[in-house]
């Protein structure tokens, strides 16, 4: 007779969320790196359309070596993929630092406040609050857009949960989530004049760190940072500049017309057009951008969004030398 061994039941409580070090809101690697004064690197994971956890680990693999936090997108561009909650749970349990992206497009305040507790229980300690792209640009444009919160009211809601230990209804949390709160800002699109003021509002609402949208226009970004420094915001919030490698001139043109919030100046598109090896040129441009960001006062790190070019992230960071002071 064959004896079947019953596996031990998995006890989720065996891994309780880590306690934040003193002076920290969370136990996230990203927060520790930033507070220690290092130039931080985060990278966006391309979420698989799969229910196999190995696909998630495979997608994370090229980012693990260099990223202090792996961003799990929440149906970015309103396209359906495996959820950010699922990705973050898997990667947190695998010991990786993650940034749990939350978009206000698909869930209302009840779902989001609950999800944040769920994520925290699974080990997530950094979140990025986003308003989210409209449903129209995605793969299911007939969907109902929710937008109950916006990014800023969401930030304040999570800050209230963390610091006051209550839901927005006032009901007490027995264990509040220890979260490092993030938000996005887009320094390169209209209204350019007021973008720094909006950043101030995000800081006021509770942002601890900022990951910007793609920056290809360094001049625009520098003007933005001038205002940020004039307001002293760079001392109140860690700013990670968003960069990424372009694949080709055609891809660049497609992105700036079809992806909301992407501004790519003509000079960059021309440079891609004239390149013998566009893919290599895209990588070069990205390395140059990372190096430039390192020089700008008030920039605390970079956020690499290398959609379908994740294999390059490692080399981009290595060659830019921004991690040279680590180890």
């Amino acid at each position: 007779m064959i004896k079947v061994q019953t596996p031990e039941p998995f006890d989720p409580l065996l891994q309780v969320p880590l306690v934040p070090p003193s002076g920290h809101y969370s136990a996230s690697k990203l927060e520790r790196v930033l507070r220690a004064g290092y130039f931080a690197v985060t990278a966006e994971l391309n979420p698989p359309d799969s229910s196999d956890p190995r696909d998630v680990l495979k997608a994370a693999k090229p980012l693990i070596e260099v990223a202090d936090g792996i961003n799990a997108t929440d149906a970015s561009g309103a396209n359906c993929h495996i959820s950010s909650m699922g990705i973050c749970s898997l990667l947190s349990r695998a010991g990786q630092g993650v940034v749990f992206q939350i978009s206000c497009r698909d869930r209302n305040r009840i779902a989001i406040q609950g999800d944040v507790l769920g994520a925290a229980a699974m080990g997530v300690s950094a979140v990025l609050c986003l308003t989210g792209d409209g449903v129209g640009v995605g793969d299911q444009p007939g969907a109902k857009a929710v937008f109950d919160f916006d990014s800023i009211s969401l930030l304040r809601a999570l800050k209230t949960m963390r610091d006051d230990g209550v839901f927005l209804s006032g009901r007490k949390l027995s264990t509040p989530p220890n979260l490092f709160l993030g938000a996005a800002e887009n320094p390169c699109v209209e209204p350019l004049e007021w973008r720094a003021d909006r950043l101030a509002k995000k800081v006021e609402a509770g942002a601890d760190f900022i990951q910007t949208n793609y920056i290809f226009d360094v001049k625009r970004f520098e003007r933005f940072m001038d205002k940020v420094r004039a307001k002293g915001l760079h001392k109140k919030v860690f700013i990670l500049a968003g960069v990424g490698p372009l694949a080709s001139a055609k891809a660049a043109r497609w992105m700036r017309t079809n992806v909301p919030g992407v501004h790519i100046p003509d000079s960059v598109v021309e440079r891609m057009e004239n390149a013998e090896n566009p893919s290599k040129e895209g990588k070069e441009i990205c390395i140059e951008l990372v190096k430039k960001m390192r020089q700008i006062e008030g920039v605390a790190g970079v956020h690499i969004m290398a959609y379908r070019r994740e294999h390059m992230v490692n080399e981009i960071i290595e060659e830019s030398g921004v991690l040279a002071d680590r180890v």
Partner: protein
Amino acid sequence: MYSVRLFCTRNAALFEKTYNVLENVFIALHPLLNKLGYNRLEKPVATIEALSKSFLFDCKMCGQCVLSSTGMSCPMNCPKNVRNGPCGGVRDGGFCEVNSQMRCVWVEAWNGASKMKSGLERISVVQPPVNRELAGSSSWLRVVREKAELKLSLKQQVAQGDVDLAKTEMANAFPDARKNHPSVAPLANEPQAALAEQAVVEQTSVHTSVDRSLDASVNTTLHTSAPSLQKGGSK
């Protein structure tokens, strides 16, 4: 109307002045309004408010107007209903990400705010999410009620059963927004006419379960009758 809407943000300073005068007149009239009964006033005032504000601002009657904090550009016209905009998707020239033919509501808002006396100060205040229970009701009457409420201490109001304790966290979480616009996180009990029937029933049950300090039966009556705030509810 779209063109009138744009006219309003261009002339935000004028509307700011007009509104401030009207608000003060309404608040001065509070004792009279209270005597007439906010419940009775709700429908006629809401109708007038909807007609005038939808003509001027394409108002959507969210019931918690923040126009003077948004450069006189109604945030409910933003396809994402963003109350703290603009989002990161604004197109070149300041057009909307979702509706490329429309000026971004929030680009207009910041431009309008920059023309107002306290516009930039107010647009910098973090606004809470919209309370959908209040949709369709009069924001004007709510402002008057709330501003009159502020004169009483919170404790006194709680003792009298005039304040919905379940709502206080929203007010705590967004204190500055409530200071400028008490109606975005209102504390006073709503007259029945201001809420959809279903919402009143739901709210009563939530209320009694959360707020144990108040007698459940008093709560129920508070929700089904007009509050007379100065006399301490419908006791």
